């Protein structure tokens, strides 16, 4: 009990003595735990809202799309074994919608003003369709920034325009103004911006929104009434059988093309596919968040290891004092570990809270489902995983330095003798041929190979994140799948900014720890005739050389990361951007390390050289 009290007291005192460092540690670990929490909270976040929406809207088990002008086709489906209810067929017409400065392609579905037995969209604001009044799918309305009472203009879509062309160039005629009667959710199509297509009728138009209006209003938007397709919603006795029901009736995927454009095949979409489509947006975000969380956790390990290593160099006399008054090596290690474990626990709690609070910002896309905002929950397993990762980061980074410090000779520790540096004869020989600043830089770097590895890893991880973010940006610039790419880009941007911030802190830590660690050799070099600039540039070079290696390694790392985050992605960043990342990284690291290197090179020489005698 007494020992535990002592360990706690010493750890608390040391944390209070260096609040700045404790805060930096906290931020480094909390960044990783926040992103990890977000990734875990988003897991399955859309499953329950989809179920709720399906129940509230009498969602179809199978949505069928086709030319249902022939009643036998309708009867073939509504009278099929296992079908217990149906609604429709409802006409579906593609149109151009203008609202709030946006011009987008919308899929309009002509509905009855009366309630339907299957797929009756549930208004979350306002009411249901009426003549001249339209209802927008909730996520679509949110993206456009419109609500009940606002006006939108609907124009017929020129069928000759190719999907992917700007919607404004594909509109025909002046169109007609409608009042927004309401905003509703449905389980018959995934929410916007996932192409909100009823039974896959979007035909290649990404980011298609869904609008309900009366049958007459919908048909008025069709340039040719004979080409209008319809949607038929089916309810099965056994919803689980929807997949088999659809598969049995759908044309083979690689089958022959339809022989007549006037008789397109009927396509059936089971509810499970709609559910998966609903989760599609968040799936990529979640993948990006989880990958980002692991990258941040690795970076946090590097941050904490560098910080701990630097502090150990500073704490060696304290360790000696502890041991001199009877502290066992285990006690010394326990004190050092306890500090970082406490910080890790606080960081885990911070990450859980921040992740829980910010999760709704990433699930905006699911506003098209009922109850999605309230679906975020931090389960016991999420809390356990996040806490375990935070503790693992602290232990992984602290254990080796703590054990090493606990084993340091008491006499040496009391004399504040620095840990003996590593020797690399080959590097020393090579460096003799270099200018003084590079000679110093190479020799300083060679003294602490572990620190060099941490610095390389830190930069490589960060550059990987930057390359992935550039890829998302390139995807956005190419216009492919705009809304989805935009959201993924935002997630990756947040992760990359966090990575860059952590890496910047790392670079400063490493530089500071190196300056501290080499204060004796720097002072000695100056006593032997090295100028402060040479020593300063040498310290910077010791950081820049690993940064160069890390930046080069980060490029293939980033390309691999793109594949992990979004396996479907084919857009790579432009070559010039990939090439520019390397010198940009080196310049930033040089700038970041300049101040610690400069202050390290200007410490009073006599004082440092005399301190060994103290």
């Amino acid at each position, binding site marked *: 009990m007494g020992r535990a009290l002592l360990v706690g007291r010493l750890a608390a005192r040391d944390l209070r003595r260096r609040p700045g460092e404790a805060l930096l540690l906290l931020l480094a670990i909390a960044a990783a735990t926040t992103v990890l929490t977000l990734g875990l909270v988003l897991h399955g976040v859309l499953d329950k809202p989809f179920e709720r929406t399906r129940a509230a809207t009498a969602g179809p088990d199978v949505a069928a799309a086709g030319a249902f002008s022939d009643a036998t086709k309708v009867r073939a489906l509504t009278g099929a074994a296992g079908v217990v209810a149906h609604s429709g067929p409802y006409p579906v017409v593609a149109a151009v919608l203008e609202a709030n400065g946006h011009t987008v392609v919308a899929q309009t579905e002509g509905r009855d003003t009366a309630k339907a037995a299957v797929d009756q969209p549930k208004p979350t604001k306002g009411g249901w369709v009426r003549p001249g009044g339209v209802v927008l799918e909730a996520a679509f309305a949110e993206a456009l920034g419109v609500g009940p009472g606002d006006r939108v203009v609907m124009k017929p879509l020129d069928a000759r325009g190719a999907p992917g062309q700007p919607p404004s160039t594909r509109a025909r005629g002046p169109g007609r103004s409608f009042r927004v009667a309401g905003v509703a959710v449905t389980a018959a199509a995934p929410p916007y911006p996932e192409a909100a297509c009823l039974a896959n009728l979007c035909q290649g138009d990404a980011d298609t929104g869904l609008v309900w209006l009366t049958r007459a209003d919908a048909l008025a938007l069709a340039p040719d009434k004979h080409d209008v397709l319809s949607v038929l919603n089916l309810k099965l006795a056994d919803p689980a059988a929807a997949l088999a029901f659809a598969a049995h009736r759908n044309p083979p995927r690689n089958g022959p093309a339809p022989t007549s454009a006037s008789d397109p095949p009927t396509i059936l979409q089971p509810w499970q596919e709609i559910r998966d489509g609903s989760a599609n947006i968040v799936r990529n975000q979640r993948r990006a968040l989880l990958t980002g969380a692991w990258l941040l956790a690795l970076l946090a390990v590097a941050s904490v290891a560098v910080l701990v290593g630097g502090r150990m160099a500073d704490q060696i006399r304290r360790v000696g004092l502890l041991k001199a008054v009877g502290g066992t090596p285990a006690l010394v290690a326990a004190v050092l570990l306890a500090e970082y474990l406490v910080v890790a626990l606080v960081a885990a709690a911070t990450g859980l809270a921040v992740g829980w609070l910010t999760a709704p910002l990433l699930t905006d896309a699911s506003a098209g489902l009922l109850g999605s905002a309230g679906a975020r929950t931090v389960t016991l397993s999420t809390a356990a995983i996040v806490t375990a990762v935070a503790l693992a980061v602290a232990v992984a980074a602290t254990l080796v330095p703590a054990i090493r410090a606990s084993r340091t000779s008491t006499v040496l520790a009391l004399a504040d003798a620095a840990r003996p540096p590593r020797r690399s004869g080959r590097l020393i020989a090579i460096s003799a041929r270099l200018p003084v600043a590079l000679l110093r830089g190479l020799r300083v770097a060679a003294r602490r190979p572990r620190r060099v590895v941490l610095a390389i890893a830190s930069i490589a991880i960060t550059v990987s994140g930057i390359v992935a973010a550039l890829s998302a940006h390139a995807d956005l610039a190419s216009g492919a799948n705009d809304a989805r790419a935009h959201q993924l880009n935002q997630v990756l941007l947040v992760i990359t900014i966090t990575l860059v911030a952590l890496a910047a802190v790392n670079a400063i830590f490493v530089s500071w720890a190196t300056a501290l660690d080499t204060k004796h050799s720097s002072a000695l070099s100056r006593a032997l*005739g090295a100028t402060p600039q040479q020593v300063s540039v040498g310290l910077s070079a010791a950081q820049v050389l690993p940064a160069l290696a890390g930046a080069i390694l980060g490029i293939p790392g980033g390309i691999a990361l793109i594949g992990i985050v979004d396996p479907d992605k084919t857009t790579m960043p432009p070559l010039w951007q990939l090439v520019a990342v390397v010198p940009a990284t080196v310049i930033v690291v040089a700038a970041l390390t300049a101040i610690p290197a400069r202050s390290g090179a200007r410490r009073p020489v006599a004082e440092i050289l005399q301190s060994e005698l103290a």
Partner: protein
Amino acid sequence: MSADESTLRAEPVLRTRGLAMHYGQGAGLVHALEGVELEVANGETLAVMGPSGCGKSTLLHLLGGLERPSEGEVWVAGRRIDRLSEKALARLRRHAIGFVFQAFHLMDELTALENVELPALLAGHSPGAARRRASELLEQVGLNDRAGHLPSALSGGQRQRVAIARALSNEPLVVLADEPTGNLDSAATLDVLRLLDSLRAAGQSLLIVTHDERIAATADRLITMRDGAFVEETRLTRGTTGSLGDLVGLER
């Protein structure tokens, strides 16, 4: 020897005027040095003695440009250095001053040979020239057989001899030695004394700060310090020294 170098040699290698060094302020003000006037001639060996804390090491640091005085002037070979920039001071140390420290201050990760060649590399000499000079110096101090050893594999006396060889790397005008035998046993002390004596015989200017009267006895002149000021100056007759070992009472 060029005309410039002849002029340099004619000047006192070290000179101070009204040198003072203060630390702290108000009630905590400490006068580490006060009104120090000093001249060290070319080729002279000067010993500075005094109790701990009397300002000996501070004087050495000021003379070597490692610290700046609070007041007064410091001249090295006719050039005032107390107002020089850090860069200029570094260049001066590189070529004009060699340091020998009580704690040796060798780089742990460098071998004896690599430690000795370091000042030459810092001065921009070619790696080959620096290596040749370092080998010569190690031979001069009797350690050519230990050239490839790390400091941790050397005895205290050997380390200090490496440090002295390093101080001589760039043929400095003056070697400033701070308690060069302070960490050594008797036998090692004798080795270092012999080495310093051979340097003096070769005309190397030396300023040695020491507690050890036996070392002081080998100098041309002895200055005694107390409370940051010179209190006594004695000119020694080196003709009477005879065998160094006899004088200092050391036996091999």
